[in-house]
């Protein structure tokens, strides 16, 4: 039973962390341009020597 005193807070904490990351990602526009990221890998950077 004593295990629960650790395990439950850990489980809740990990869930809350995921939630926090999702909120952060949304606030910082990570979902603004979903198709763009897929296209960008095709850009050839070496063309202009960058």
């Amino acid at each position, binding site marked *: 039973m004593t295990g629960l005193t650790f395990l439950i807070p850990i489980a809740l904490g990990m869930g809350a962390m995921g939630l926090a990351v999702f909120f952060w990602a949304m606030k*910082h526009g990570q979902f603004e341009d979903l198709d763009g990221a897929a296209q*960008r890998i095709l850009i050839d950077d070496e063309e202009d020597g960058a």
Partner: protein
Amino acid sequence: MDGRAETEMNAPIGIVADRTSDFVDTRLTAPGIRCAGCIGKIERELSGVEGVDSVRVNFSAKRVAIVHDPEVDEDQLIAALREIGFDAAPIADNPLGNDDAESRKLLRALAVAGFGMMNIMLLSVSIWSGASGATRELFHWLSALIALPVIAYAGMPFFTSALMALRYRRTNMDVPISIGVLLATGLSLYETATGGGHAYFESAVMLLFVLLSGRALDASMRNRTRAGIGALLGSMGKSASVLAPNGSTSRVPANELEPGMLVLVAAGEALAADGEIEEGSGAIDNSMLTGESTPENVTKGSTVHAGAINLSTPLRIRLTKTVSDTAIAEIARLMDEAGQSRSRYVRIADRASRLYAPAVHTLSLLAFVGWMIAGAGWHQSLIIAIAVLIITCPCAMGLAVPAAQVVASGALLKQGLLVKDGSALERLAECDTALFDKTGTLTLGEPRPDLSNLDAGERSIALALAQSSRHPLSRGLTEALHDCAVPPAALEDVREIEGHGVTGIWKGGEVALERPSHTAAAMSVNLRVGDISHLVRFEDTLRDDACETIAAMRALGLEPRILSGDRSDAVRTVADELGLESDAGATPQKKLQALELLKQQGRNPLMVGDGLNDAPALAAAHASIAPGSASDVSQQAADAVFIGRKLMPVALAIKVSRKTMRIVRQNLGFSVLYNVCAVPLALFGFVTPLIAAIAMSISSLVVVANSLRLARSARVPGA
């Protein structure tokens, strides 16, 4: 690309404002962004422009965000983009795009509900597998601790909507949902406090999660298509260059223009108000207003209307009517009135819930009364009544409609058709008559040249000349010659003489693309190479698949006909070619009357059109579709917008929307069947939290799986 843009892959550039505080942020829409090459080209080339700090392309929204020196103004940036081949426009205040905030709120609520559901489920599973005594009590309290804030946050969208409905003495889907969730939470709290065995926290949160996914799907569908349409909206006639008496010009927004102002309208610019030409002569394109594709010649003293595009030399125009007095504003008023019938349309989910909510509430009340009479005691009776509410809570029903509609609209999007919302899909499915505008709808709305009398050498000269001009005929010529893969000839000293044509030097001799001396054929240019000249005629051709689309519409049981504002001989040519009945010379009012007549006959007309003159008809029709090249107003009035050169998406829209409604009805039917099976269990007190949770997930999964069948529905056979 600079290093910073690399590291902050998706961050909007504006957030680094602390370092670039003396820079300003400009956002432009560029609908021409189609591939990785475009992103690379814009970001590379524009970063090289003097005064530009950084550039970031948003591919999904077809927008470019530019951080630049305040000295560089918007017009210069647009010009720079045009130079590398992209038409750009400032982002207008788009009345369609305001629900972004709402969908973010739903997503956040969904994330919170998801978090709560997983954790409570974790605790509930151990209770179901036999935890008892102190452990069970601890787990119940923990569940309550998680559930209460989660329900308060994630339930907000439902509670506020239900309150709103009740305040107006109406009921909607959210009323039974809110009552169910609140009662389940209240009962569970009571059970927890008294050490009882059955707490329904996981059911309450799961219900919210499933329903929120339905709402979030619905919102994301609206956003996706509205962003697409927003990118297409241009800056047509939203401002004008006003000439001050001292000769200086300033940009004035359309709603601040006043009669008596003198404005300068550049070639290719749209008029923002009605007026009279004071200086200059040439041709204007009035197709947005009248639907007629032939340019109209104007000269000093001619009256011109807002929405017309100046095709030739700059014109000085004395404004006579502005803002709400213009011909366009009159059309907007017609549109407002015409659109009212549509706002009265009741969506299928609401129709279902009007029957459903009273039935469920009565049943639950009867269960309570019945068990009280049977002598079960008020606690037991209440538990059973609430179990009835929970098991019948419209979980599958809340998903039945949005899941099917989102999958269908995604499938249509791939075929180039943007459907604005679920209600549009429902109305499209009910259409039984189709009315087509001609110019820009059945035809491409852009002049295509007849190249048969030019040889390869002449074609390459024509291309070299045409590509340096922005006149509509030159653009049509450039596009057609690009299609035949002609290389442009090497010309020197290419100059555009406004209102006359383009000239250049080829192998020492003069070549020119100019207005024909005799003005008999309005849509033609003269290609002159040395002393030899060729007349190139232009025609507004039918879309390639117009015939097949008409046939497909007939196969779907819709009788198509033409309703156009163009001259009757022009309309008849097209009508004969397609084998359709036609009405020509229809004014916006006449188009409205034609639709009203059809409605009185009990038909549901579909209107397909692009011009401003179609906008009232688009708003009045039972459902409407506009091409992506249509005027802004028409795109906003229409339920769906199709992109590209094909007309087939129109027929596809009807086909898919009908299939969608079939799936939606199946989903609703399944929900009813599920309730018929589950309610007796609840009525006789056999439902435990475990059974409620399992039944709820299974019914939701079945509905989603059934809806996914629509993903393949929009495939064109053989494509």
